[in-house]
């Protein structure tokens, strides 16, 4: 039992930390966020050069064979600087689905381009009525010729605006909320019949709604077996939750540090705010929350890594009787709670300056709030957790 990084992992962490320190000051981030793209293609190319875009993929596909633990350490560094590039949508979600389900040809063309930094991608699985449930798919895919015709509405596709390809879920059979009958398609967002409505999320990232009206899809762009996509979707979302949890840990630690530094500097009533006990206690609670979150995040990453390698969890400490899906749901709940508490209190402890868009703390607050909602909020994952135990 240990929670240490290996030498290679420490090196990777140092490289990513340095990138974030050099490129993601509050001013640099604000400048980027205000561009039309909302992030930097040059940073994206740097990620490709650093090997980050190839990190989780198998060596046979040209990847680095990195595990969920490796992804988590990158994401934690990204979280510290609130990195804006579409890493999770492209590499973890779309990339993860292509590497699990794609045929040789799809893997070669799409993953090759992703790893080289030439292609960004996204995953559209939500719909207006589905909230967070990936099995709730009303978008339909009907056979037409050798391909399919898609109709429906995919909502809030994270980093949809910059995506060259979007993987969308659509129903080829089954009732609207059944896990059976869901298929995945590689969609060209500029194809005829696709209306892409682009927006910005509160934390400065891109998102799209996709209106699909009689969109023609070639048989070649079906990803995986028809109607059998759900288990892969679930695994991809688990990987994304692990990644975003690690990002939250990085962001929460930075938030706490910035807040404590501010309390030491800010003078009121003739003394530093850090001398007031009610504020001291709040910082202690915020610290405790991030420590609990780090434990969950690291345990989940190890759990997913090990369940990728073998299915025998007997020797796993602490959760011998727990499914990876349970650990995932629990982690999302615990981290959502911590992220909300820390985000809101960081604004509170800053006072007026925390209310300004110019000062950095509000941006951490907004990102933490988004993370609480992304891939399912605390209520949703509490219910998921319960369903796994009680049915």
């Amino acid at each position: 039992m240990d929670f240490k990084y290996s030498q290679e992992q420490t090196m990777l962490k140092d490289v990513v930390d340095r990138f974030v320190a050099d490129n993601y000051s509050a001013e640099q981030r604000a400048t980027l966020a205000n561009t039309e793209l909302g992030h930097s293609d040059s940073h994206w190319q740097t990620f490709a050069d650093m090997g980050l875009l190839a990190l989780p993929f198998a060596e046979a596909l040209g990847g680095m064979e990195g595990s969920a633990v490796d992804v988590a350490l990158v994401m934690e560094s990204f979280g510290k600087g609130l990195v804006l590039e579409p890493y999770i949508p492209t590499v973890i979600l779309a990339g993860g689905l292509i590497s699990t389900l794609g045929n040789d040809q799809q893997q070669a063309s799409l993953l090759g381009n992703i790893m080289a930094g030439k292609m960004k991608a996204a995953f559209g699985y939500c719909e207006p009525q589905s909230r967070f449930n990936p099995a709730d798919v009303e978008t339909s895919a009907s056979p037409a010729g050798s391909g399919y015709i898609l109709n429906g509405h995919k909502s809030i596709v994270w980093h949809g605006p910059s995506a060259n390809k979007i993987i969308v879920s659509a129903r080829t059979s089954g009732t609207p909320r059944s896990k059976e009958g869901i298929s995945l398609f590689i969609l060209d967002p500029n194809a005829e019949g696709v209306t892409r409505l682009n927006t910005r999320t509160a934390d400065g990232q891109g998102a799209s709604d996709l209106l699909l009206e009689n969109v023609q899809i070639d048989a070649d762009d079906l990803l995986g077996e028809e109607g059998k996509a759900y288990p892969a979707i679930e695994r991809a979302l688990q990987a994304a939750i692990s990644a975003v949890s690690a990002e939250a840990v990085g962001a929460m630690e930075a938030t706490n540090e910035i807040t404590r530094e501010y309390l030491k500097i800010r003078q009121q009533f003739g003394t530093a705010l850090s001398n007031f006990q009610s504020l001291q206690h709040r910082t202690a609670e915020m610290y405790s929350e991030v420590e609990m979150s780090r434990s969950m995040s690291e345990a989940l990453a190890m759990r997913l890594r090990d369940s990728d390698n073998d299915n025998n969890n007997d020797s796993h400490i602490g959760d011998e009787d727990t499914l990876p899906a349970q650990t995932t749901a629990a982690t999302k709940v615990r981290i959502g709670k911590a992220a909300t508490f820390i985000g809101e209190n960081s604004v509170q402890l800053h006072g007026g300056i925390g209310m300004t868009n110019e000062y950095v703390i509000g941006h951490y607050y907004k990102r933490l709030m988004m993370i609480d909602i992304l891939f399912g909020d605390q209520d949703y994952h509490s219910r998921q957790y319960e369903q796994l135990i009680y049915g």
Partner: protein
Amino acid sequence: MELKFSQEDLEFKKEVRQFFENKLPADIKDRCERGLVIPKEMQVRWQKILFDQGWMAPNWPVDEGGTGWSLTQKYIFAQEAAAACAPPPMPFGVNMIGPVLIKYGTEAQQQKHLPNILNSDTWWCQGYSEPGSGSDLASLKTKAVKDGNDYVINGQKIWTSYAQYADMMFCLVRTDPDAKKQEGISFLLIDMNTPGIEVKPIIGLDLNHTLNEVFFTDVRVPIENLVGEENSGWTYAKSLLEHERSFIARVANSKQLLVRLKQIASTQRIGDNLLINNPDFRRKLTAVEIDLMALEYSELRFLAKQMDGGQLGPEPSIMKLEGSQIQQRLKKLLVESLGMYALPFDADARADESDYLAMGPEHAHGILDQHFYGRSATLVGGTSEVQKNVISRLLMKR
């Protein structure tokens, strides 16, 4: 990063589990499972079984009777003990004064006391708190004045758990009234049968007699009962608290409470359904279960840090803070599981020691005792508020 038991650890786990299955007496297990106070006779009987097995003092050096277990093995032992509903040894002897004597005691003190701590022939209590010195312990006033070959003690201790059973007390006394408050304190071993000591019971919220006041009137304690240097007692008291810090969050115990809570909620009817299926109750259960999971992984993470030679900073304080709150939430949910039967509180009725008839479900016996006693979790060993002071002081220095 690795979160797996070794094959050796798994073997050890099996061995420990079998030991508890075979050796833990049913009457003791039952009281422990219900959260009832364990009487002295049962406590000593159980500790002697642990002693015979050689497992009484996992935290002691092997030469002194320790087990030589790794931290992982200690973790496994704590988990299995709690899961089996085995009462933990009374901490005052084996986990508190024992390690202090091993580190700071004279050879004579070690020879006299350590064997009797190990075999549970001597029952110890802790003389720390005073009426005017709770969280601010270093302000204590109980006075020790040298007179010939003795110290003469006058003053009062309070909240002294199980002093009514104790043969010995380790006690903080003021030997230099003029020094800065932490610097005039000495650490004494006091025979509870010495003339001038009076123990008066304090009945707790749980209606049990675990707490006491202890009065000292011209109590003569031989100088050889001083531990370490005069006026350095605060150092030893602090080192003792450090030994107390392992498994401070009581994760294993809370996991057992969770198991019991689920068992009860799975039998308790609510209309035409079971309580466990009630969405309001279940959501509270889930929330605490998830917080407990994070606490357990934190315990493992901090253990791993220690095994790797790392120094802990605020970590023990956050474990105490979070762990004590989780214990209280679980105990409160056990109370909630009783519905209206949470109102009657007459523990003795179920022990056939009262005129009242026992009523309500059989499992109700113990739940209120445990809940009321459990309110002390956020008080003892440094209140939650003191823990937050400690955490923020360490953080602000960074």
